[in-house]
């Protein structure tokens, strides 16, 4: 219809308060009828100057901050930060600590992908059903976190040199029970959505990114893998002993929203596999090395990254031998994944823009920091 009938474009504000922006995030779109001709992001409503605050606190005190950037994946954030500090200070981690870290990071990935998949289907208009199913399973993961760290969302569990506490005795049976149930749940979600014509119509071919574009836009995580690039830091640059575990990298076909969705589903399956292996081969020994509270790493810099649920989660820490980091920079995956939003939304409809935003799986706490 567009093109034949002349119409005036007008500006529509999606957000800051909008059911589908997953927080206080705003897209100013210029629409011509239903078609988007321009999109501009406005963010920073949740900016808390984490990077500045971190310069005033000791290395250990900064761990809780990392919980609060990506509050849906606090374990992964903890992990990235402590890895950076360990790299900077040259601290080793005992085997058991590493294994626990892997278990926690993978459970966190499952929980976070549950949320991502659920919220994404909600954005396509499925009336809350998949999201409630996902929440049901996510709750069980969070129960495990509560059992271990005492907190459900902001766990603050990783420590420099290991983890805060050893696993409680009831952790292993509970986790094994969860692991036994999870594949069935993933199949259930897949059965509900993957063969669903409406879901396919809404997501196939929406927000297409070629491998070239995805790379050029610095994307990472499921966004990059959805475009067909086999890149997973757990494989490419193993940390915490990921090289010991047998898993595979799921990749998509054409880089649309649907591909990101199936990549996430498959990643949950792979995570289940990894946790299973880590749990089977859980070594004994201490869970942490002793690290002085007032840690003063030698002058220098370190950039450590982990494969977070949303992509490459990097921490760049500069030390000047002081008790607090001289510079503390987070490479937030969902912030950088947003950089291609305009490419993906322009030309589509408003409804497509929402689906694209859902497929990026943003967490506003991480975007604004």
């Amino acid at each position, binding site marked *: 219809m567009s093109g*034949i*009938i002349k*119409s005036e474009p007008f500006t529509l504000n999606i957000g800051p308060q909008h059911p589908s922006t997953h927080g206080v995030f705003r897209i100013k779109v210029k629409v011509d009828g239903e078609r988007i001709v321009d999109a501009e992001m406005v963010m920073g409503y949740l900016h808390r100057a984490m990077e500045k605050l971190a310069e005033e606190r000791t290395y250990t005190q900064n761990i809780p901050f990392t919980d609060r950037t990506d509050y849906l994946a606090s374990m992964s954030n903890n992990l990235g930060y402590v890895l950076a500090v360990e790299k900077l200070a040259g601290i080793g981690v005992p085997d058991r600590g590493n294994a626990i870290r892997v278990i926690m990071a993978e459970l966190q990935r499952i929980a976070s992908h549950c949320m991502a998949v659920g919220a994404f289907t909600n954005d396509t208009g499925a009336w809350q059903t998949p999201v409630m199913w996902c929440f049901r399973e996510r709750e069980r993961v969070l129960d495990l976190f509560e059992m271990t760290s005492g907190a459900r969302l902001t766990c603050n569990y990783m420590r420099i040199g290991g983890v805060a506490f050893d696993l409680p005795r009831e952790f292993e049976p509970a986790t094994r029970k969860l692991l036994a149930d999870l594949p069935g749940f993933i199949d259930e979600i897949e059965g509900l959505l993957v063969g669903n014509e409406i879901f396919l119509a809404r997501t196939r071919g929406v927000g297409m990114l070629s491998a070239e574009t995805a790379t050029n836009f610095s994307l990472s995580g499921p966004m990059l893998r959805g475009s067909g690039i086999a890149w997973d830091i757990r494989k490419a640059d193993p940390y915490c002993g990921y090289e010991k575990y047998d898993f595979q990298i799921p990749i998509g076909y054409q880089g649309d929203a649907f591909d990101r969705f199936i990549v996430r589903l498959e990643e949950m399956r792979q995570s289940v596999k990894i946790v299973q292996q880590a749990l089977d081969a859980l070594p004994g020994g201490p869970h942490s090395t002793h690290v002085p509270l007032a840690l003063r790493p030698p002058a220098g810099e370190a950039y450590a990254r982990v494969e977070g649920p949303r992509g490459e989660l990097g921490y760049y820490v500069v030390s000047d031998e002081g008790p607090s980091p001289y510079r503390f920079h987070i490479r937030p995956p969902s912030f950088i994944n947003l950089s291609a939003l305009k490419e993906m939304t322009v030309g589509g409809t408003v409804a497509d823009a929402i689906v694209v935003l859902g497929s990026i799986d943003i967490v506003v706490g991480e975007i604004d920091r």
Partner: protein
Amino acid sequence: MDGFGVTFAFWVLTGVTLVAALGVLLSRNLLHAVLFLILTFVGMAGYFVLLSADFLGMAQVLIYVGAIAVLVLFAVLLTPRAGRDNGETRMFLPALLLCGTLLAVILFVITDTNWAVSEEPATVSAAGLGEALLSRWVLPFELASVLLTVALVGSIMLVRSREEEAEDPR
């Protein structure tokens, strides 16, 4: 179904229809005018029902209220600045003259015609209507549909923008 009830309904319908028609004329807001027009259509449907032409009445509602009014609303939405006050027209006097003349002619015809009043109430069934349309009146019926098609094509041609025409090889 005669006497008081019909008379009462007739006057109520007349009041509603006339007020709505006046609203169409006097409303300064294009959208309000359209909505008044719809009310007028509903009033007309009421007349049809009063005349025992229930199928026609329902068709009036279905086609005029359900379809044509919606199309008009669509046109209003696509019109730039539709919500604006459109009172500054300069065609007021010619329009008044034209309408007055038309009204005079219609009134003359109405008063001058020798209306035949049938004794028993007319019953126009849907079946009879369909048979009439597709046998005796088939030519006007088809002509009307051709006319509508022509109007459809014409309206598409009208809204084609110049750039489109330039791109068009014809």
